[in-house]
């Protein structure tokens, strides 16, 4: 019966379709995601649809999420579209040597900085075009919430990311002055 047919559908394919539709219609509905597989789909779709900015604050580009060829491709294409991409990584020295996203970052000359973590409360996040975001509740479990159209929260996260960037810049300047 139809039920049998239905069970053959790849769950992630359904999730991907749904995320794409949410982006397409600018839905303000919040999506929970509770596995690295969901995270991959969300990040890839958000990169694919980004137009102006793509800011990512993460631990060390772990292959569990970032070791996905589709994400690497989406990052690469976003860079080709002149999307302003910046990665802030907490532990750059822990980035896997075989990271394909790191390779794209190097190849495309994408800016990558080191910052954090925050002392009191630390969560990773990614924010795109100042209105789409993915915010991790738990770094280990890779559970997160995401929203494809949340201008207020997106703006806040964008502001925070830019503050982090300016701090990094100030530090660099200071380091340049003080040998």
């Amino acid at each position, binding site marked *: 019966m*139809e*039920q049998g047919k*239905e*069970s053959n*559908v790849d*769950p992630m*394919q*359904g*999730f991907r*379709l*749904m995320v794409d*539709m*949410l982006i397409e*219609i600018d*839905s*303000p*509905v*919040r*999506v*929970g*995601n*509770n596995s690295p597989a*969901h995270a991959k789909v969300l990040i890839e779709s958000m990169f694919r649809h980004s137009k102006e900015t793509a800011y990512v604050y993460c631990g060390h580009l772990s292959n569990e999420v970032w070791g996905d060829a589709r994400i690497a491709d989406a990052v690469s294409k976003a860079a080709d579209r002149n999307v302003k991409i910046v990665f802030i990584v*907490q*532990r750059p020295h822990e980035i896997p040597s075989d990271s394909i996203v790191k390779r794209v970052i190097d190849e495309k000359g994408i800016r990558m900085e*080191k910052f*954090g*973590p*925050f*002392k*009191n*409360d*630390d*969560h990773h996040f990614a924010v795109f075009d100042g209105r789409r975001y993915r*915010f991790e*509740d*738990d770094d280990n479990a890779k559970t997160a*919430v995401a*929203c494809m*159209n*949340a201008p*207020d*929260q997106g703006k*806040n*996260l964008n502001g*925070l990311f830019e*503050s*982090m960037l300016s*701090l990094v810049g*100030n*530090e660099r*300047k*200071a*380091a340049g002055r*003080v040998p």
Partner: protein
Amino acid sequence: MKGRLRAVFPDFDLSSHASEVVCVSIGANLLLPAAPSILSKLLVGIDTNPKHIVSRTLVKNTGLTDYVMCKDFETIGRLASNINSIRERCDRMPGLVWKTIDFMSAFLGFFLLWSGWVGDPHVSKWCGLLILPSVFAVLRPFVIYLFFRLRLSWRIMRILANAAKRREEAEARNTAQVMPQALEEFMELANSEIQNMRSRPAGKREKNPSRGGHRRSKKH
């Protein structure tokens, strides 16, 4: 009415309304992802506005372990057959008992009409009122049909009204209007931390774990 109709999906307990849920049209060019457990019971929701479909489905499936795609026309077909089966059941309700009563009352009515009102002048004219059962017998199918249709409509309305309420609650919980608590707290703490860092002279930032400092335990 449309506002109510679009409310059928989220958090809606279909199992308790296995043969009652009904709804409406669908945007013809959309795929409808929904959980199989819903689809197996679904008589069906659906809407002309793609935003509603996605929101509903998403709300329902936020936990997301299983998905299904189904072309909307298939779903509509299932809906149609379910509605028909409800209607047929309503039409079958009277059964043999009612048919017997119909026959008896019609026979009695016509007999009294002939013998009481038109025939024997000694019998009270009021006996003619006994013809009413036969009138009822003639009208009964229409009355019963109307009754069941009205009852069905009322049930549907009630279900949809409940669903509308549930939808509102679900949306309040799930839309971006409500900021996730963890995000709110993180923004607050991170911003204040950044302010602190800015107020310190550049190059004298407190050490953190990535730079050999200590990291306090996470709140979340």
